[in-house]
């Protein structure tokens, strides 16, 4: 199997604090990787390196489809097809739905003039197809702060899909969602797999990660504590081992 993303010997320190230490991490073609870890394990830092928001310390290497990524940035990550659905959901509350969908990637005509008409039309199309908003109460002009948690997640997920992501990173997408909304989010992860794309699914709830992931990676205190293919392990075995990780910092594989 080929890899979309390979990270070799990645470290990241903030001042005195080592958030990541010598991490080797990869995502295969059309693979859903579940990334588990406690708060402060370094999950968010790892994600922010993948999205170009943080630069890793020197010595590490990031490869995209086998080619090294240099001068990596958020814009470049977008351009090559890395999309994130953040836990804080990355929406601008006081702005309209269409402005949120096209946030940072506005459709423009010559000279940077906004193509408002096209953005509204595209948003309307997405509302009925991907987001499943059928209520006449929501329009392209609705401000996002009036939306429910599930609706907001839908906006963020749809935004990722619209921009033809190759690798979708879901940062705790089920946090704060109701049971039915969680199921919707998990269905979306399956749809990424069905569409032939890859995803990194970050959560600390193993019951959400286990059913949809192909491979599970456990991060602990800035290092990879262990990883395994899902079919090697039952959910019960995984749960037991995670308790061990919490105690010893190591996962028996």
């Amino acid at each position, binding site marked *: 199997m080929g890899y979309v993303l390979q990270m070799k010997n990645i470290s990241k320190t903030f001042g005195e604090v080592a958030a990541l230490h010598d991490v080797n991490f990869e995502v295969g073609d059309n693979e859903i990787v579940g990334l588990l870890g406690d708060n402060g394990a370094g999950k968010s830092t790892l994600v922010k390196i993948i*999205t170009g*928001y943080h630069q890793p310390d020197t010595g590490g290497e990031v490869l995209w489809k086998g080619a090294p990524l240099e001068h990596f*940035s*958020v*814009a470049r990550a*977008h351009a090559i097809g890395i999309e*994130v659905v*953040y836990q*804080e*959901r*990355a*929406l*601008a*509350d*006081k*702005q309209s739905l269409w*402005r949120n969908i*096209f*946030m*940072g*990637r*506005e459709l*423009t005509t010559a000279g*940077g*003039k*906004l193509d*408002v008409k096209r953005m509204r039309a595209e948003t309307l199309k997405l509302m009925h197809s991907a987001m499943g908003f059928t*209520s006449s*109460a*929501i*329009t392209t*002009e*609705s401000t996002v*702060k*009036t*939306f*429910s*948690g*599930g609706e907001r997640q839908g906006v963020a997920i749809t935004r990722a899909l619209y921009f033809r992501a190759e690798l979708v990173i879901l940062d705790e997408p089920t946090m*704060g*969602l*109701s049971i039915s*909304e969680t199921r919707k989010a998990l269905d979306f992860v399956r749809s990424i797999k069905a569409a032939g794309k890859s995803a990194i699914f970050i959560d600390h709830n193993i019951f959400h990660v286990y059913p949809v992931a192909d491979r599970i990676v456990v991060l602990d205190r800035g290092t990879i504590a262990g990883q395994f293919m899902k079919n090697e392990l039952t959910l019960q075995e995984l749960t037991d081992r995670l308790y061990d990780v919490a105690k010893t910092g190591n996962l028996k594989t």
Partner: protein
Amino acid sequence: MSSDEIARPLSKTARRGPTSRFLRKYALQLGIVAVALIVWVLFLIGAPRTFLSKEIYVSFMSTTPYFALIAIPLTLVIITGEIDLSFASVMSFGMVGYDVVFVATGSVWLGFFACLVCGLIAGLVNGMIVVKFGVPSLVATIGTWYLWRGVVLVITNGTGLGMTATTTTALHDIVVGRVFGLIPMQFFWTIGVGAIIWFFLNRHRFGAHVYLTGDNIESARLMGVNVGRVKILAFTIVGLVAAFAGFVVSAELLFYWPTLGDGYQLTTIASVFLGGTSVFGGTGTIFGTFVASFIIGAINAGIVASGLTNFWTQLIYGLIIVASVSIQTLLGRKLT
């Protein structure tokens, strides 16, 4: 029960028919127009002789642009979640550029050009201090407010400059001439600056990023918006327009006083907040600021015409700022 189930009844109330949606969307703009009409009627009753003559309206169109011009770009800065208090000194700093270059070359046009360049630089410096050093803009621009005023006083040694030389050039007519011998050109400049900035705020990528930066700076950054550049540009535009406004005042009065700009702080900031721009960033309109600045201008004239002393103006402007910011905050909480 999940958190969104609790939120749901609230979000239902936020969704009504299209008429209600229109009212909601333009609530602030409609509100400010209503306030303008009420203020006008009050003054018509309070001082009918003044407010029924056309002179007072010509006077509004002549003097309101002094601060309305700056309030318009200042709206951009406040939408990004920052503030600029230094613009009054920048008005004078720009004119120092004019002063020095005019005295050296004798050219009004070169002086005017130098004035704009000085304003541009002053605005850029504000933006750089805020973005590159991470100093809160409130503190940074209090600093530059005194800094530029100090530079002005040191260079001019406190003495002013006659501006009669401008009347021999077309520039005077272009900037502060009278159309049909009546309507001051600075009024059209205010509309022009308003229209241009409205376009960039509402119909250009720059404006979209201005709103996103002020609304949720973290997500804007995560989505690849260059928030630093957006803020620097907003500050720079304020500096440029402040210098232009300084030239307008000096050309109109035919004299440049080094203290130029003192007294416009309150009126300018009051215009932006009265116009409905959020003190928390993320929302605000050019239309609101434009209408509000004429309300402020009318209040100034109205106070005097109603027989109150000029001492009342500061009290009333202060009250307007406090009241409009408080009302906005309360309403904002209700509507969420």
